[in-house]
């Protein structure tokens, strides 16, 4: 605990010193009356045979997700914009279907799930200040959420430095099995509460005409029911549901640095240190190389990412006796993860669709591959179209 307190003190001290010395640019507003639309389609696949949480001991964590997203921003006045986001997911997960087939009273099949989420917000700039707020909801088979966020930022030193503060609050309701001692008679329990409060401080500084740096400190506290719906543990050959504490405080300090290597190329380097109340430490590094391809600002981004995380205090592959807290969720194990990917951004001249002039039209593609040393692999393809009118 003292170690945790010392770390917090060190982080806060570092940030305080830093904020007094450095000074970013506010997000650009569009012309009054303009609307920007971006649609993103995500196609995700993962596989693993090492998921100790899977009820039938197979370890299979296969998962397929299709997730379209639409982002809309409309400039209602010169200094005020309204924003919206709609997300729809559909997925099939081996752990869900195994839970379903191994618990006879779960009701309707959950072999395929779907989620819909929406978010509405507004952003305003007043001089050197920028304010934003949004409100959203998310709903699916075993999870409902209502959430809100506010943020404020101020620029200093001719917009060379920007300091921002954000607050997010989630009120979630989940459904989960609490007792599977008699699997065929197990019933899913509804109305389980989870709340998450997250706050972040972000500062960015233009260092020179060719480089910029950003720092972020995030604190998040989750409370309530923190177990996952489909997670179980093996206690001497008998399956039981995972048990986790009802609170978790989490801290993350991250930094990102972008530097031009030439007029048409740059590196984007980021590092994040994370630790939490459940004894997890994590170090994540990402390096991207970006190359502009032509005068139309088309560009390509390639990146590599490495992350190490230690194991959650309550994790074990299996348990000899029941513990107060126990999990075998492979996501909470100790592992290294490696990720690589490539993005292509292609910009088009203004387009005309059904008589409407579309400006800043772009089409992006991304391929990402990810693997963990405890067996899980995933890969996904993202494609997005963006335009203004």
């Amino acid at each position, binding site marked *: 605990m003292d170690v945790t307190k010392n770390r917090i003190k*060190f982080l806060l001290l*570092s940030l305080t*010193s*830093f904020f007094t*010395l450095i*000074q970013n*640019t506010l997000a650009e507003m569009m012309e009054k009356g303009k609307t920007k639309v*971006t649609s*993103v389609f*995500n196609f*995700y696949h993962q596989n693993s045979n090492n998921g100790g949480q899977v009820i039938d001991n197979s370890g299979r964590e296969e998962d397929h997700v299709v997730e379209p*997203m639409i*982002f809309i921003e409309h400039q209602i006045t010169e200094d005020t914009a309204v924003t919206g986001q709609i997300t729809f997911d559909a997925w099939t997960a081996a752990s869900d279907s195994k839970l379903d087939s191994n618990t006879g009273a779960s009701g309707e099949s959950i072999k395929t799930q779907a989620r819909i989420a929406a978010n509405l917000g507004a952003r305003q700039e007043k001089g050197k200040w920028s304010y934003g707020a949004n409100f959203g909801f*998310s709903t699916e088979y075993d*999870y409902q*959420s209502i*959430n809100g966020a506010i943020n404020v930022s101020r620029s200093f*030193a*001719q917009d060379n430095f920007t300091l921002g503060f954000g607050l*997010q609050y*989630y009120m*979630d309701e989940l459904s989960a099995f609490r007792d599977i001692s008699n699997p065929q008679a197990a019933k899913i329990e509804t109305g389980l509460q989870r709340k998450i409060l*997250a706050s972040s401080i972000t500062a*960015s*500084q*233009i*260092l*020179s*005409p060719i480089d*910029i*740096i950003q720092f972020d400190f*995030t604190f998040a506290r989750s409370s309530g029911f923190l*177990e*996952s719906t489909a997670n179980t543990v093996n206690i001497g050959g008998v399956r039981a549901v995972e048990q*986790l504490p009802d609170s978790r405080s*989490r801290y*993350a300090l*991250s930094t990102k*640095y*972008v530097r*031009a290597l030439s*007029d048409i190329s*740059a590196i984007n380097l980021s*590092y*994040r240190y*994370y630790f*939490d109340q459940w004894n997890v430490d994590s170090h994540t590094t990402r390096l991207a190389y*970006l190359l502009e391809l032509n005068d139309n600002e088309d*560009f390509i981004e390639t990146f590599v990412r490495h*992350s190490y*995380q230690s194991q959650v205090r309550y994790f074990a592959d299996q348990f000899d006796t029941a513990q107060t807290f126990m999990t075998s969720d492979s996501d*909470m194990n100790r592992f290294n993860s490696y990720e690589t990917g490539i*993005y292509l*951004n292609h910009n088009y001249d203004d387009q005309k669709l059904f008589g409407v002039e579309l400006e800043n039209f772009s089409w*992006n593609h*991304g391929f990402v591959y*990810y693997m*963990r040393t405890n067996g*899980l692999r995933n890969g*996904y393809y993202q494609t997005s179209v963006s335009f203004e009118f």
Partner: protein
Amino acid sequence: MKLIASLLLGVLFTGCANVNQIDRGQLAKKFMQLDPHPQESVFRNEVHSFRESAIGGNSAVGGGCGCN
């Protein structure tokens, strides 16, 4: 942690001379943005927050049954 401290000190000692608006042409380019693919990052951050215990330092901090 040492890397963070080094970066902080680096910023401290290199100083922070103001860059005029007119000199920010390179920084305004799309490939020079701190996040050149912000919408794609929403999904990417979700995946990381579900598959790794560590969250924060990005936009994904809550929501979803995979995020304890």
